[in-house]
Every structure is written in C-alpha cells, then in structure tokens.
C-alpha cells in the first residue's frame, strides 16, 4: 500500500473527532503508506492534522453536500490513492459513496477494522443493525466508510499542520448553503446527568414513557432515548442519544428496549455501567452492556421501580 487519503469532516468550521480517528486508523492499517488528509473548510481546521504527511485542502465555508463529494472526487483523481478513508458520519455519507461512484473506486461501508488478507486487506463491516459482521475483500482502489471509534482520536491528533499543504480549487456546487440551525436550549441536558433511563422502540407507545419517568425519579436520573422514540414525537430531540443526538457518558445507563444499533452505541458506549433490558437475547446492546436482562420492559420497569422503593423504605 503506497498512499492513503483520509477525508477530514468539517462542519461549521470545526473538524470532527472522526478526522483524527481516521488518521490513526490509517497509520495502524498501513504504517508504510503516505498519508494525505483531504478536506474542505477554513485553514484553521488543519491544526491538529500534523499526523498526516500532507494535506490537500479546499478553503470553503458553510456546508454543501456536492461540494464535499466533488472535493473528495478531485483529490482521488489527482492522487490515485490505494485506499480512501471517510467517516461513517453525516458528512462522510455525502462524500464517500459519491466520490467512489464518480472516480470508479469500490465502496465498502460501516467498517470497524481491517485485517491482512493474502498481501491485501479484508474489512470487517458491521451491518444488519449490529447483528452481523461481514468480512469483505478490499480491492485495490476502495473508499471505506469507517465507523466512529475504529481509530483513536487521541493518537491521531498531532499538534500543528501537515508539513505540506496543497490547495484544491473550490469545485462548482449545485447546492447552496442557507445557514446552520442550532438546537434550542432545553430544560434537561442529558449530557450532565449521572443516571440515564433510556428508552427505545421497545417501550411500545408514548403512554409508556411515564413508566420510565417514574423509574428515573426513583433513581434521581432523567429519561433519554433512542432516535425512533424522538422521531415518533414521544420525547423531545434534546433527549436523543447517539450519532445524530447527544454523546453521553453517565455513571449508569439503562437501555430499555433499545436494540443497540451502531448509531446508538456511538453515543453511549463509554458509560461506566450499562444495564440493558430487551426481549431479544441476541440484541447487540448486550455486547456493550455490563448487565443484561432478557425481559419485557413493560414488566421489568415497574418491578425495578418497586424494588428501589422497597430498598429506599
């Protein structure tokens, strides 16, 4: 492997953690390869990317999906790398497959690790809601969408800019950017609580949220949730944990009727103690949980609330 491109996510002027993770991931997978960071954003976003040998950068503001797709395509065409790494993020989803299609590269998504395979590589991809891992041969010239957490941002972040920074002209974009929308302040900030009682689709219905509220009260915590619960309108967006919600790190995380899709795990896997309750013994949430209960949450939640009340007298 001679050359690897790592695409650096930049949103609202800020590089995301995933960019540093990709630099580390690339060094682990192909230590001998030249590593080129590619991205679109302000020059300041290059700080911390000194771990890359070079950067190829487009100075751009705002955010346009086709712009990031075209920047990555142009970089691939110019550099002809063996491997391209893109984060499995809202930005990577715009850039990755699009650039693969435009440049004739192969595309493999949801990659959590790479392993050697007869002088080449195989990717391990987490699919089917986390229930299966596919080993996929990585052809020469492939774009990989890498899951958050596959590399270490701490190792990947090196102070300073890459030794060499080349510029890529801003490509024409069809989309225009009309501004960012910021989340409204909410009464409850789930990132600041020690105990989260988190409910998923398994809670069944809006009226059952009350059971979780009672449990949270008994525990001195607050109710959070997976995405479908928010999409159904049962809880406000500020309560959502995961990729497109909040990243949380409470002392205790109760996952009640949550399957454990990678997008959810991304937001809570660092919790100190994870307790999962699910009717499906094969639910992927049990892979990251410290304690697991196979049961119906509608039976279990009231039973736990009752147990706590008894203990508390």
């Amino acid at each position: 492997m001679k050359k690897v491109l790592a695409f650096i996510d930049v949103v609202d002027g800020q590089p995301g953690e995933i960019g540093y993770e990709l630099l580390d991931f690339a060094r682990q997978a192909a230590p001998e390869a030249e590593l080129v960071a590619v991205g679109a954003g302000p020059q300041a976003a290059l700080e911390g990317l000194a771990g890359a040998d070079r950067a190829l950068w487009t100075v751009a503001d705002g955010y346009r999906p086709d712009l990031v797709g075209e920047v990555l395509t142009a970089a691939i065409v110019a550099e002809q790398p063996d491997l391209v790494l893109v984060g499995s993020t809202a930005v990577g989803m715009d850039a990755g497959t699009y650039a693969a299609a435009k440049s004739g590269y192969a595309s493999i998504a949801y990659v959590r690790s790479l392993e050697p395979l007869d002088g080449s590589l195989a990717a391990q991809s987490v699919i089917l809601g986390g229930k299966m891992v596919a080993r996929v041969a990585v052809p020469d010239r492939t774009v990989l969408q890498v899951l958050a957490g596959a590399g270490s941002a701490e190792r990947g972040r090196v102070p300073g800019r890459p030794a060499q920074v080349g510029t890529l002209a801003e490509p024409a974009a069809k989309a225009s950017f009309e501004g960012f929308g910021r989340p409204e302040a909410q009464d409850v900030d789930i990132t600041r609580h020690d105990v989260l009682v988190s409910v998923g689709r398994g809670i069944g219905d809006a009226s059952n949220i009350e059971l979780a509220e009672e449990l949270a009260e008994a525990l001195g915590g607050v109710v959070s949730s997976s995405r479908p619960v928010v999409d159904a309108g049962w809880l406000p967006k500020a309560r959502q944990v995961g990729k497109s919600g909040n990243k949380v790190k409470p002392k205790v995380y109760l996952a009640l009727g949550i399957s454990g899709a990678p997008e959810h795990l991304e937001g809570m896997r660092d919790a100190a103690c994870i307790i999962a309750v699910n009717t499906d013994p094969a639910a992927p949430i049990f892979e990251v949980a410290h304690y697991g209960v196979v049961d119906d949450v509608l039976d279990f939640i009231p039973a736990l609330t009752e147990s706590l009340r008894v203990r508390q007298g």
Partner: protein
Amino acid sequence: MRIAVVMKLVPDVVEELVLSEDGKRLERGDIALKANEFDEQALEQALLLKESSGAELTVIAAETGDVDEMLYTALAKGADRALKLVGDGLQDGIWNAQYAGILVDVIADVGADAVLTGVQANDDLDGQLATWLAAGLGWSFATVVSGVEAAGESLIAKKEFAGGLTANLRLPLPAVLGIQASPEPPRYAPISRVRQIMKTQSLEEREVTAPAGSITVLSLRPPEKTGGAEMIEGDVQAKAARIAEVLAQQGI
C-alpha cells in the same frame, strides 16, 4: 414536481437471521424481509410534499422478495403510481451500486425530478443508495435529511449533523435526497384500504437487468462475543431486585 420514492426490502433483524451454507450471505428464502424503515420515512416525506405542492408521486421497488404489499400500501397511503422492477437474479438481493445502475434509466422514464430514498438500510454494505444514485444521475443531493420543502425550482432540505446541529440547503431540481426522518411519523394505511387498492389498482411492471456487483463477501457471521454482559436470570421480581442491588453498588 414529479417525485420518485425508491424503496427496498431489508432483512428484519428482530427475526432469526439464517446464513447460507457457504456462510457468505443470508438465506433470503428463510428470513423475514420488511420495508427499510428509512424508506418509509422517505415515503411519508414525499406524501407531505405531494400534499403541500401537488407533486405526482411514483413509488419504485425492485422485486428482491415479495414487494407487492409494500407497493400497494404506498398506493393506499396516497402514491399515484407503483412500479415493480422485475428480472433474473433480483430475488437473491442486489447491492446498492447495482440498484442505482438499474434505477438511472427507470427514473429518466418516470420523468422524476426529485428522488427520495432512505438515508441508509441495514444491508448497505457497498455504500448508500442515495449517493450512488446522485452520482449516477449527476443531480444535486443531500443525505441525512429530516425535512424537505418545495421552493419553486428547488427543494429546501434540512440536513442533520451530530448534537442537533442542522444545515438548511437549497438544492436545485433535479435532486436526490437520503431521508433520515420525515417531519411527521409515517402514516398508517388500514389493511381494509390496502385490500381495496389491491382490487382497484395494479402495479406497473418493468423488466430490468442488474449490472454486476462489485463486492466480495468472504464471510458473514454474528459478532464475536467480547466478554459481553453478565446476564441476570430469574423471574422478573428477582431480576429487578438484582439490578437494584447493582445500582446500589454503583452508589445510586
């Protein structure tokens, strides 16, 4: 505006996942398939656009399993046309690059100027359909979209990032959108209405040939157990009592 919603069947992961003998894929005949949940969100978003701006709505699905009910349900919810793509090899499942390869011509024939599909599906091993399609068609696009409004010759799309940050994007038509969530939860079509539609309306069919797929799966298997959780046994009271004890040990 003419909107096409592209849907696909995916393995229902709550049901048992049966592997083929060579261990490289799911045994499609022995597993439950269902509509990709994000495609249902895309359909709902398209129905809302139709209601607000009078768009014509065609729902498209390749016959990678029994798609009739999914398509009739879309008609019952308010889609104008339903197009079933049929052909050899589809029943084994196709990768998204293949699906996009088929769809480029189909979408031109339908005359769509906006294509909505789910942001992802649980079996998108070769990348997401919306971006394969956007590249294939050469249209403007956005993925991870949770709200779309018609604005003359453009669509205004709300794209989501982490932490609740969103971007408002103006996408000139024609455009492809990968829908994460519709502003309203997907509507429900009563079974009686679906049955009635089955009697009064029919699915259009079109013969297609899938291009070759580019992905080589070496093996497919459940994740290796990495320690995993301590599983608590007993009746529900006993389990609750044990978890209460664990919480007490955590100082809660």
